[in-house]
């Protein structure tokens, strides 16, 4: 399968960047779906989304139509929040969408607001995405001027939609939907206990729907072409084309739009050209940094929620990280554990303490000071990479603790011999040994500039 043979919907002009301008977008039929949606009933629209099988593209994969049907319409005002926090390591698909299709996203938001009978939407975008936030703000300005946003949109009396871009400040946890809401309310991004779910009591205590950027950008296409069209691309209960962020040691990393029938093996070896320098594939993280790791013999599976689950991992945010044989799994786990202990919000003891302990222990093993008892301790904290096992998973308000524990459990399960080797040898056996920051400063044995690939 070559890239040129693949159909593209979301990323047709990804290099051209022309949809930023309203006139270009309108020339392609832009905002016609929103105009059409004004003539549809909410029930009709929600039914089409339900029938399409669209599932949230942020990571959890919850059916969007079903989420929408939970919104408590007896209470008002209601809100729609677009989760543009995209902070799961490995995931980098929403940024190109926002930078290159801002008006398509706005049209998706307008359609969704009409379906949900919502008048104000907030795009919560991570602070690092300066450019995307600027482009969105400009597109919003254009849409207001054209009468597509604000009071009486498209000249229809009484129909109102407002969109506000709200920038975060650099906190992974704000991608968690309730933390996103507390952050938007002007507080530390602390997740809240559920229930009540946001669909009942969300932003400012009012009914709120939170959807990922890629989820919402699919809405105009689904409303235009119908649910059956979306189901052309199907594997079990995963429908539609989706964006896969590929990073790490492949020859052609990038963001690819693919059907869920493509296998992880095809993605890595055909579409991304295989492993750099013709190295050996060591392992793959198939769905963002939180999901269990897969070994080379486990990757011949379709990239659907069901396909990846059957291999023992999760599709998550469909962010595929590829490691070649030069990467030490213990070092890589220390890197990820550092991320989670840094990003834990600190509210719940099992997560705050557990993530910090996991990092310390993994780092100790990587540094060659670990013992076999450390391995057991790690295993007892992290569990076996399944929900509810270990001392963290299922014991905190949000899933950050789970997300931190799953890779630990799975790394030990997949590479136990290498962890034990570190303990036995008293050092990391990998060449180009890299140390973590010591006292906030990076220390490297081979501390000289050199050309890297």
């Amino acid at each position, binding site marked *: 399968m070559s890239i040129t043979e693949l159909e593209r919907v979301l990323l047709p002009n990804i290099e051209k960047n022309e949809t930023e301008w309203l006139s270009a977008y309108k020339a392609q039929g832009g905002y016609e779906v929103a105009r059409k949606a004004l003539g549809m009933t909410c029930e009709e629209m929600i039914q089409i989304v339900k029938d399409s099988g669209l599932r949230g593209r942020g990571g959890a994969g919850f059916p969007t139509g079903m989420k929408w049907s939970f919104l408590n319409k007896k209470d008002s005002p209601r809100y729609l929040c677009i989760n543009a926090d995209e902070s799961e390591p490995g995931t980098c698909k929403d*940024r190109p969408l926002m930078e290159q299709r801002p008006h398509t996203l706005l049209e998706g938001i307008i359609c969704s607001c009409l379906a949900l009978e919502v008048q104000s939407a907030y795009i919560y975008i991570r602070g690092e995405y300066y450019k995307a936030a600027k482009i969105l703000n400009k597109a919003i300005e254009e849409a207001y001027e054209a009468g597509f946003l604000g009071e009486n949109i498209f000249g229809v009396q009484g129909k109102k939609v407002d969109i506000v871009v709200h920038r975060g*400040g*650099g*906190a992974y946890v704000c991608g968690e939907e309730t933390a996103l809401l507390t952050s938007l309310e002007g507080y530390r*991004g602390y997740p809240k206990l559920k229930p009540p779910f946001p669909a009942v009591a969300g932003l400012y205590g009012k009914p709120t729907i939170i959807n990922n950027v890629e989820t919402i950008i699919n809405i105009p296409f689904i409303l235009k072409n119908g649910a059956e069209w979306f189901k052309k691309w199907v594997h079990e209960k995963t429908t539609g084309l989706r964006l896969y*962020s590929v990073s790490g040691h492949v020859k052609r*990393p990038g963001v690819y739009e693919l059907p869920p029938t493509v296998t992880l093996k095809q993605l890595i070896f055909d579409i991304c050209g295989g492993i750099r320098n013709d190295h050996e594939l060591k392992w793959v993280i198939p769905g963002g940094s939180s999901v269990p790791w897969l070994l080379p013999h486990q990757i011949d599976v379709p990239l659907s929620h069901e396909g990846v689950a059957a291999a023992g991992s999760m599709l998550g945010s469909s962010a595929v990280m590829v490691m070649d044989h030069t*990467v030490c799994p213990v070092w890589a786990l220390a890197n990820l554990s550092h991320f989670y202990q840094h990003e834990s919000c600190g509210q719940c003891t099992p997560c705050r303490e557990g993530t910090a302990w996991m990092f310390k222990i993994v780092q100790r093993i990587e540094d060659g000071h670990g013992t076999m008892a450390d391995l057991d301790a790690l295993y007892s904290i992290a569990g076996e990479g399944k929900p509810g096992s270990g001392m963290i998973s299922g014991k905190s308000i949000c899933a950050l603790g789970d997300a931190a524990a799953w890779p630990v459990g799975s790394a030990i399960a997949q590479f136990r011999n290498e962890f034990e080797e570190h303990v036995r040898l008293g050092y990391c056996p990998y060449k180009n040994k890299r140390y973590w*920051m010591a006292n906030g400063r990076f220390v*490297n044995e081979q501390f000289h500039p050199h050309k890297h690939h």
Partner: protein
Amino acid sequence: MLNILKDETERIERLFEKYPSRRSAMLPLLWMVQEKTGWVSQEAMEEVAEILAVTPAEVYEVVSFYTMFQQRPTGKTHIALCDTLACAICGTHEIAAYLEEKYGIEVKKVTKDGRFSLELVECIGACSMAPALLANEDLHGNLTPESLDQLIASCP
């Protein structure tokens, strides 16, 4: 008394119109401060507190939670170099070493001439362009020694 934000009253009023609660303007106000001064000082936090009618401690609580708000002055160009897995396996540490060796830009420090500061940060959402960094607001990916040299030369 407003000092840093004294000329921004119009922008601040427009900000309040966007949210049903004034408190929601917290992060946008902090961004406004950081855009103007490069960091969020204690004085700035006191001003934001005054505008929002909350205590300075409540503002500090927020500032200290979000890693992008700088609590001390940075260099003219602040480099946020991504150090999470996808970037780290593609050369983050080689880049940090290169910046220190060739340009004297050290992690967590401001260069003596005040031109640069460098920070290792967690994932910046540019994984398929690894290794990547943010130089102030601009994203630079697929970094090589050559592209770093160009970047450094282009900074004021």
